[in-house]
């Protein structure tokens, strides 16, 4: 985009059904109930689905299921945005699929996305750049975009992401991109998650050590190692250290501006978030800065609100998604008005 061009529109908002894992897993609400609720609350129109979560026998999608899904989203005024597919590299414990096997594993999942009317598939770094390159003719024949999710502990400049960027430079296909997850941009660990760590660890000093290292400088991999080193030195129980070290993989503190380096390749976004403070602001995810970076960067694709507070809360997630989208809308408008 040239510098004197005015940004006219910002990102579009939707929700991923992953946000509603609690009512779904508890068998309180089925797939169709969730879609109806998204429409009723106005937290679409974009809707993202995890194939292996919502669809029995996935990646097989029956004609009946596809017809029912398409009729339902039409009736409800929803728009399928991204189908989350899985690069299950270690289907057999301790082994790893080769590239051809992975490409064959992902192919029916991509075909399922096409059959259901999703324009994008969310892939994962369990598929190597080479496995993904093998899928380009399929993506072209179906006109489907594919992007691995850049989720903590990875960031836009992590080695696996750089390897993909190198492949993308060679292949130069508009169907290949990336899907950022806001958990890479946390400015702190959400309070509810800290409480969970406390309950799991039962060792306040170890919790404080983990938090101080998380909040300090260094990349996620170094921090995890450093925590394990210091925890071992102070005699933290191995099980406790292991439970706490997960925090370094779940959340990282990359600057929101770091996405600028791949902005033109971003095909979808996971708006990961957790909880709000008394003033209604997100406690850990820098929503204002992120909306500014994506809006000013010219991103006009979808952001799926992805509440992950269900990691420690039994709430349904609907109120949280409503509040998150309210914040996003406010900060997108603010960025557009600047």
């Amino acid at each position, binding site marked *: 985009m040239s510098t004197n061009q005015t940004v006219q529109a910002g990102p579009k908002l939707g929700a991923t059904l992953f946000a509603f894992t*609690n009512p779904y897993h508890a068998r309180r609400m089925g797939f169709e109930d969730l879609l109806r609720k998204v429409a009723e609350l106005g937290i679409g129109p974009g809707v993202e689905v995890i194939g*292996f979560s919502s669809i029995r026998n996935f990646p097989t999608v029956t004609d009946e299921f596809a017809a029912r899904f398409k009729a339902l989203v039409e009736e409800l005024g929803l728009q399928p945005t991204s189908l989350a597919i*899985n*690069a299950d*590299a270690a*289907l*057999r414990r301790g082994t790893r699929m080769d590239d051809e096997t992975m490409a064959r594993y992902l192919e029916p999942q991509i075909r399922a996305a096409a059959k259901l009317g999703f324009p994008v598939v969310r892939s994962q770094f369990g598929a190597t750049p080479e496995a993904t390159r093998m899928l380009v003719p399929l993506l072209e024949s179906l006109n489907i975009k594919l992007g691995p999710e850049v989720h903590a502990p990875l960031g836009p400049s992590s080695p696996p992401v750089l390897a993909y960027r190198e492949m993308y430079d060679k292949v130069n296909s508009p169907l290949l991109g990336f899907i950022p997850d806001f958990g890479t941009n946390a400015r702190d660990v959400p309070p509810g998650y800290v409480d969970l760590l406390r309950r799991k660890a039962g060792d306040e000093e170890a919790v404080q050590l983990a938090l101080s290292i998380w909040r300090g400088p260094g990349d996620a991999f170094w921090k995890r190692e450093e925590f394990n080193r210091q925890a071992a030195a102070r005699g933290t129980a191995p099980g406790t250290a292991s439970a706490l070290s997960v925090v370094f993989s779940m959340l990282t503190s990359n600057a929101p501006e770091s996405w600028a380096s791949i902005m033109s390749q971003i095909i979808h976004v996971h708006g990961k978030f957790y909880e709000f403070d008394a003033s209604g602001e997100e406690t850990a995810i820098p929503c204002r800065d992120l909306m500014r970076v994506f809006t000013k960067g010219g991103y006009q694709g979808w952001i799926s609100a992805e509440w992950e507070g269900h990691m420690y809360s039994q709430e349904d997630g609907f109120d949280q998604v409503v509040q998150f989208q309210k914040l996003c809308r406010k900060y997108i408008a603010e960025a557009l008005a600047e």
Partner: protein
Amino acid sequence: MENTFSPRLLPPEEARIADGRLSLGVRLPWYRALPLSVTEIASLVIDGKQVPGEKIHLTLNGNRYSLDQLPEQVQEAWFVLDSATLDVDVALDATIDHQIALVVHLYPPYIPGLTWVTGGTLTLSAAH
């Protein structure tokens, strides 16, 4: 061991003693379907006593497996809304309460190195 799925791991309405043997429904403690090959029944303790693995069989989608057969079941999908059934070959008196503690390990096949540990407990009340 306690995580967000713990309260749902052992649905009370799916546990029973029939002919002196315990049968337990078990939920998949994850948000998406996984192949049975990446699931592990790590520990079952009844009334404080560890049950040997060879006394436990798991049935899913109508197919019955010994626990040591699970790592090979790459094609058997455990859908996220379904329960597997554990049949436990230990004599139990249905006229008294029993305390059950189960630990399930998952090895999500797209997250290298992660062992997802979920513990759940259940009090099986005496039959009336």
